[in-house]
């Protein structure tokens, strides 16, 4: 066993010697891994002080107060989850229906143009989404619900859903288009209508891919910073309704990093929150990948 490994390792180094270009390519490919480790290490290092001092209170404490040195992020976690949940509630039905429609129902010559427009929607920067939100959605919400300020969790969810839809559409659209043509033809040949084929053949095969696209959308929504911080009202509390202002973890980091002194307890607490966010997105993205791969094997 050990001999086999030794051989493997030595032949690896021999191959490195004979092909210098291959080493360069290999290093470039490994770059992403190195960066991820560095990212985890450095964000964790800066957040370590806050973690050792507050432990789980960093996530579940109710108060964030500079004077009393209390840093509890629960209202922020609550706000993040609330806004993300609201956004997904809107984005999932719209995104999944769009994906099915574009890849199964729409005539071929319309597919590329529509996909391109959705892709354009994805490329609009978040600061522009925030700007549009302030210009249109905030006054709209405040006039419809008779609120003093239209900067609410609902506003943030609406804007965020627009930003999440393209992710859901492109990922699940890709999976839906990848369903083998033969399967669909077999179903149609047996006399099923197109809708029945979608329902009984296409959707069961692509359901894991659709689930993965929703998870990726979740990852995108919970990490969104700029647009949310512009329209959510930014008040750290645990609101009972979507018509109140909220603060999310990423927008709190964005607005507080500038004022907190490097090395201070608040600075460390912000990195602690960042680490939590990083770990959440790691888990969600990894799960999404596993779900897609398993779905492909089964399909």
């Amino acid at each position, binding site marked *: 066993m050990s001999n086999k490994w030794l051989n493997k390792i030595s032949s690896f180094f021999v191959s490195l010697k004979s092909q210098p270009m*291959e080493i360069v*390519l*290999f290093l*470039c*490919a*490994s770059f*992403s*891994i190195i*960066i*991820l480790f*560095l*990212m985890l290490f*450095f*964000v964790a*290092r800066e957040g370590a002080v806050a973690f050792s001092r507050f432990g789980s209170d960093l996530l579940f404490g109710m108060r964030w107060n500079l004077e009393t040195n209390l840093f509890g992020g629960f209202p922020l976690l609550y706000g993040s989850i609330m806004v993300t949940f609201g956004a997904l509630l809107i984005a999932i039905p*719209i995104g999944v*229906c*769009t994906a*099915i*429609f574009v890849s199964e*129902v729409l005539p071929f010559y319309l597919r*590329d143009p*529509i996909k*391109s*427009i959705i892709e*354009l*929607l994805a*490329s*609009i*920067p*978040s*600061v*522009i989404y*925030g*700007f549009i939100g*302030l*210009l*249109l959605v905030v006054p709209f919400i405040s006039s419809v619900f008779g609120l003093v300020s239209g900067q609410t969790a609902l506003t943030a969810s609406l804007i965020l859903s627009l930003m999440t*839809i393209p992710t859901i*559409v492109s990922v699940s659209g890709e999976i839906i288009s990848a369903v083998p043509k033969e399967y669909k033809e077999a179903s149609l040949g047996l006399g099923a209508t197109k*809708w029945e084929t979608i329902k009984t053949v296409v959707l069961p095969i692509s359901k894991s891919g659709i689930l993965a696209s929703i998870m990726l959308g979740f990852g995108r929504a919970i*990490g*969104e*910073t*700029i647009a949310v*911080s*512009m329209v959510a009202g930014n008040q750290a509390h645990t609101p009972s309704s979507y018509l109140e202002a909220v603060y999310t973890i*990423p927008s709190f*980091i*964005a*607005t507080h*990093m*500038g004022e907190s002194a*490097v090395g201070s307890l608040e600075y460390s607490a912000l*990195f602690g929150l*960042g680490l939590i*966010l990083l770990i959440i*997105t790691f888990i969600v*993205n*990894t799960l999404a990948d596993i779900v897609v791969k398993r779905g492909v094997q089964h399909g």
Partner: protein
Amino acid sequence: MGSQTKERIFFFALGVPVVICLLAFFWIAATLFTGVGTLNLEFLTTSALQGGAFEMIVGTIYLFLGAAAIAGPIGVFAAIYLVEYAPSGKFTRIIDQAINNLAGVPSIIIGLFGYTFFSRQLGFGISLMAGWLTLALMILPIVIRGSEEAIRIVPTSFKQAALALGATKWKSISLTTLIAAAPGIVTSVILGIARVAGETAAILFTSCVIITRGLPASPLEPVMALSFNMYVQIVARGEPPENVFGIALILFFIVVIFSLVAIILRVYYRRKQPWLH
């Protein structure tokens, strides 16, 4: 007949969300276009010290060009490795997973990391350089994925012809596969630029300031950017959004132009590459 009507109703219902998506885009575009009046050549070319946007525009261009110059080669090399060299083993799967995870890291975390690592640990400070490196991390997964696809669709017979003529593996890849894949690779880089041209969170702590005296003289100086300026003016200074209409519009144009070029290039070359049919 009954099932056909039912089908029509279902398809109609499915079509509604699509229309919502399209309307959303045109609504955003139409809203922005109401601000076209605030744009004129003078605004574009006047220094920010005199109320123009010149340094912000150039700063934004500096930022995304530098980031693309860093991420481009690394991304293409990584893609070549993954398509042409990588053995199908555990480590390759880990690399693949890492690229997906990097693509999914929220930009604010990329910004936090850029600040602690590039600005402080490596000592680049709040600078163009720190911004380049930070944004490069966001472009990288896009370039890798796009280039991978471009390289994968090049027929192996191209490479085999070169190998048969006695070229080494690397030579045959760089002389045939890479050239055939070049349009796809360029497209992926442009797409990456479109993604980061309007990025705010990642440059918030790493490279931008609200006003500079002229353009940065070296990569170690801070820079102005359209997105950063919009954000700070609205959130930190509490200005009404109407006041940054001009900046928003320029940023929107830059991003949409890059995205459109990438999309058109992709559609065009997909049709043009004869070996795909």
